[in-house]
């Protein structure tokens, strides 16, 4: 069976389409023909529909719920309220942050859009009719929507269910609306550094409440098979195994009798990490009725009730010498968590990895304190296309650096270069406790500066400012730079878990007799193209062409246990597991090859797709031949077959970084900001598929544009959501979106098996500060220190007006 076709090593490598290949996506054939399989596409026999009655108030007591008229509608099967769930102890569910959240409102509603009753009906139209007919008698209570007033003595009591519980999941609570105070770093040392510094700048910087808003909303189909006792739930789950464990713990159905499936997912961006009341109610409804129950939220429900992101009110103080050497960083955050603490963070980190806030800079001493508070807003606090609270941290430090540069009258890029962690300092221990794995910041920044011709842009800006002052133009030019360092790939089991589940991930690879393979992972693609890229890792590791490898994810009955896809963890954790599983297969394959070639294992070397005898490459066995042999030969000392599984516990996080440059032209009379140019250099370590990386960067930058320029979920003083539909919530179209320029450097992660770091979220983390810095920079010479996001036309115009620049 030896393949004798003399093909060159280069051709064999090409054929694999392994790591580094811009391989076209295998997912696309289905999607371009409308043959995707999203949860709303499921149509099971006898399927019922669920829909919610939701609170119109931000804060109110429920005096009575009258279901009679709704129950009289033909086709309405049942209506669940908290009273129905109480006997099952399901009226509250645990959150990922150590709090509980009402599944259906228990005596009180705490945010507009909160789930009050769940209608089960024969079709979605009947369910919608019944929603209108449920008569809920509310007594409105004063709403708390300003986080700065949450801890006032006379602030309304929101959480009556925990009013006497003054010890929370993250330590003592100092007020009935307080959730935790979390601190990291050297407070005394930092205050000392601030007190002796030549220069200190202080700024209050808010990162507004936004929403991930994937194009597909959240939903599920729950089906309880009463004959075999098995519950199957198909749904929009970024972490299906975690959902299975949580479902088992709260329903008392044994875990082997629960199957959770994530079919195709229409974007996640963090929105689909959490467990929502709709999932629990659908499961209960299916158990009660014995029929499958589908629940699909609409867009307004998605924006107003499922997980928001950010809502961090940050205060930063930076100390420096007069020539621009940073000597300390002090930060405090007032974190608005809404009505229930449902933040999606690893258990030990109630503010996520916000303490990456020292960024790309060698800052000797730092302190962070975060106070979490309850308000009458929707719960959530997910990582919207970023690792846990990393984008908030990157925004704070990158704005503060610009503000410091302005104060020192230094160029912001030069200030960054002066304070960067140097290449030879890696692995670098940050003042707030992280060990940065690798980086070469100066090279990346200088490559970016050359690409955009940075100093020429500054000269052009000087001319523009002079022309503006002479009255020759009404447009101001702004230049924004951001140099971010992310922390992704959560994470090491020693300090990262969610509800006690260690944040390792997994891959199982099985080679078929004829030399093709299937790989199954604990992660879930939501557009990232895992079926394409993970097959490339397998191809490189075991020498089977990527096109001969099926990749499967998202079915807990077949996939090995993993913690799912969010926080750019798939490549750093499951990608590592994939490489390690491949290496286990290769190790066994080497033993088989040695037997077949009648040589000692040590006499063999791996070459692309085969083991060959050292010094005699003609004597070789390809992986395909080895695979067949593993199934048809009795090899002494070896079990038949060729498969392996790896559960990978990463030794550290990975630290992708990048240099972003943005140029805007801002019309002071209309507030319209035109993004003239945006250059993004990313270093995500080893690059698995350059085409997919570029696509991820385009998409992440567009989300950054949306956040910076327009997205906001705000509330009025009564607790009404403003911006809860696509009428108001800004999603840029192709017209507002600029052309993105991408570039890269490669600094592999030293601890990752293939050196990859993850990239999907970098453009959001770096994009927001680069865009915001550019808009702020346009006004900097007119005395502006900081303008709050979003930089929509109205706010930009108001800023111009305040600075005396408008007509």
């Amino acid at each position: 069976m030896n393949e004798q076709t003399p093909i060159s090593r280069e051709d064999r490598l090409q054929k694999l389409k392994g790591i580094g290949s811009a391989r076209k996506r295998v997912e696309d054939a289905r999607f371009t023909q409308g043959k995707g399989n999203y949860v709303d596409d499921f149509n099971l026999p006898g399927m019922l529909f669920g829909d919610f009655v939701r609170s119109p108030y931000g804060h109110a007591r429920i005096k009575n719920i009258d279901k009679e008229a709704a129950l009289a509608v033909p086709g309405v099967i049942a209506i669940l309220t908290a009273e129905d769930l109480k006997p099952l102890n399901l009226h509250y569910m645990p959150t990922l942050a150590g709090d509980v959240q009402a599944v259906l409102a228990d005596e009180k509603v705490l945010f507009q859009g909160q789930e009050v009753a769940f209608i089960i009906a024969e079709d979605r139209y009947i369910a919608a009719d019944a929603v209108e007919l449920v008569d809920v008698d509310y007594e409105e209570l004063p709403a708390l929507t300003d986080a700065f007033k949450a801890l006032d003595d006379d602030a309304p009591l929101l959480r009556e269910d925990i009013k006497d519980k003054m010890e929370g999941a993250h330590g003592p609570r100092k007020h009935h609306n307080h959730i935790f105070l979390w601190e990291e770093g050297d407070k005394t040392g930092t205050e000392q550094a601030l007190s002796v510094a030549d220069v200190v700048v202080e700024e209050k910087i808010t990162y507004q409440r936004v929403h991930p808003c994937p194009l597909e909303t959240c939903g599920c189909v729950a089906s309880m098979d009463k004959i075999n006792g098995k519950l199957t739930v198909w749904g929009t789950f970024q972490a299906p195994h975690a959902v299975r464990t949580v479902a088992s713990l709260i329903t008392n159905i044994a875990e082997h009798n629960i199957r959770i499936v994530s079919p195709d997912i229409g974007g996640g961006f963090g929105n689909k990490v959490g467990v929502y009341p709709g999932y629990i109610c659908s499961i209960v409804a299916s158990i009660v009725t014995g029929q499958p129950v589908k629940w699909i939220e609409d867009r307004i429900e998605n924006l107003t009730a499922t997980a928001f992101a950010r809502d961090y009110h940050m205060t930063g103080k930076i100390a420096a010498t007069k020539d621009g050497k940073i000597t300390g960083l002090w930060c405090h955050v007032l974190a608005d968590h809404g009505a229930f603490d449902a933040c999606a963070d690893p258990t030990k980190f109630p503010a996520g990895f916000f303490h990456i806030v020292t960024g790309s800079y060698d800052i000797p001493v730092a302190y962070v304190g975060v106070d979490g508070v309850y308000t009458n807003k929707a719960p959530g606090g997910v990582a919207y296309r970023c690792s846990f609270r990393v984008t908030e941290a990157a925004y704070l430090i990158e704005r503060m650096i610009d503000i410091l540069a302005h104060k020192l009258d230094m160029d912001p890029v030069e200030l960054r270069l002066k304070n960067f962690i140097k290449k030879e300092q890696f692995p670098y221990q940050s003042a707030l406790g992280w060990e940065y794995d690798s980086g070469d910041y100066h090279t990346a920044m200088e490559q970016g500066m050359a690409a955009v011709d940075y100093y020429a842009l500054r000269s052009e800006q000087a001319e523009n400012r002079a022309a503006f002052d002479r009255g020759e133009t009404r447009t101001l030019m702004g230049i924004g730079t951001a140099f971010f360092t992310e922390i992704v790939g959560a994470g090491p089991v020693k300090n990262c878990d969610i509800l006690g589940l260690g944040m390792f991930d997994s891959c199982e690879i099985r080679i078929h007799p004829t030399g093709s393979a299937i790989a199954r992972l604990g992660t879930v693609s939501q557009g990232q193209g895992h079926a394409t890229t993970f097959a490339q890792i397998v191809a490189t590791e075991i020498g089977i062409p990527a096109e001969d490898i099926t990749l499967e994810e998202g079915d807990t009955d077949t996939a090995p246990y993993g913690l799912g896809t969010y926080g750019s963890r798939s490549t750093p954790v499951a990608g590592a597991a994939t490489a390690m599983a491949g290496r286990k297969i290769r190790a066994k394959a080497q033993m088989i090859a040695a037997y077949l070639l009648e040589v000692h294992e040590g006499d063999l070397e791996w070459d692309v797709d085969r083991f060959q005898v050292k010094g005699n490459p003609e004597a070789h066995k390809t992986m395909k031949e080895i695979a067949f042999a593993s199934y048809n030969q009795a090899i002494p000392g070896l079990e038949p077959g060729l498969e392996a599984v790896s559960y990978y516990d990463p030794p550290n996080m990975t630290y992708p970084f990048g240099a972003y440059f943005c140029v805007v032209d801002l019309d002071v009379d209309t507030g319209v900001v035109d993004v003239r140019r945006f250059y993004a250099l990313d270093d995500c370590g080893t690059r698995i598929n350059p085409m997919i990386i570029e696509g991820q960067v385009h998409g992440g930058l567009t989300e950054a544009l949306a956040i910076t320029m327009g997205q906001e979920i705000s509330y009025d003083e009564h607790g009404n959501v403003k911006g809860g539909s696509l009428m108001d919530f800004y999603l840029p179209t192709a017209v507002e979106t600029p052309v993105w320029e991408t570039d890269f450097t490669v600094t592999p992660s030293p601890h990752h098996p293939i050196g990859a770091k993850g990239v999907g979220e970098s453009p959001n983390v770096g994009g927001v500060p680069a865009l915001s810095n550019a808009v702020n920079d346009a006004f900097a010479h007119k005395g502006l220190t900081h303008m709050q996001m979003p930089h929509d036309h109205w706010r930009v115009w108001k800023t111009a007006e305040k600075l005396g620049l408008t007509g």
Partner: protein
Amino acid sequence: MSKMHVKMTVNGKEIEALAEPRTLLIHFLRENQKLTGPHIGCDTGHCGACTIDLDGKSIKSCMTFVGQVAGKSVTTIEGIANPDGTLHALQEAFREHHGLQCGFCTPGMITRAHSLLQENPDPTDEEIRYGISGNLCRCTGYQNIVKAIRAAAQMLNVQEAAE
């Protein structure tokens, strides 16, 4: 609620069915006709995931009642491929140029692009961007979608010139 008799052409086939008059066309196509290519991404006509072609014009099928299309001809993503079963140039180009990621906007986007190229067979990048501005994508940043539509237009124009 009582049902009405509806008759229309869907992807070249005459169909007849019973539906409540208030049924939105998107629900009729997805649930009655089992054409789950067009998707629902909002309820307000903004996202374009439900875009279909009605008598040669792009419409949002979540903004249309089934009764409004009686006697008309509907084309969905399932009807875009060439008559011989091969993929349409747009479907090929979206794959070739990485014009999709999660795939949720893709059916509506391709269906819209299909009409756009009939309205304007040789659009500039700017015309493409305006032409698809009723369709939102959260993953790609549109850049590769624009590239894919331009490439498909070129491919179709070359084919037409050869015929």
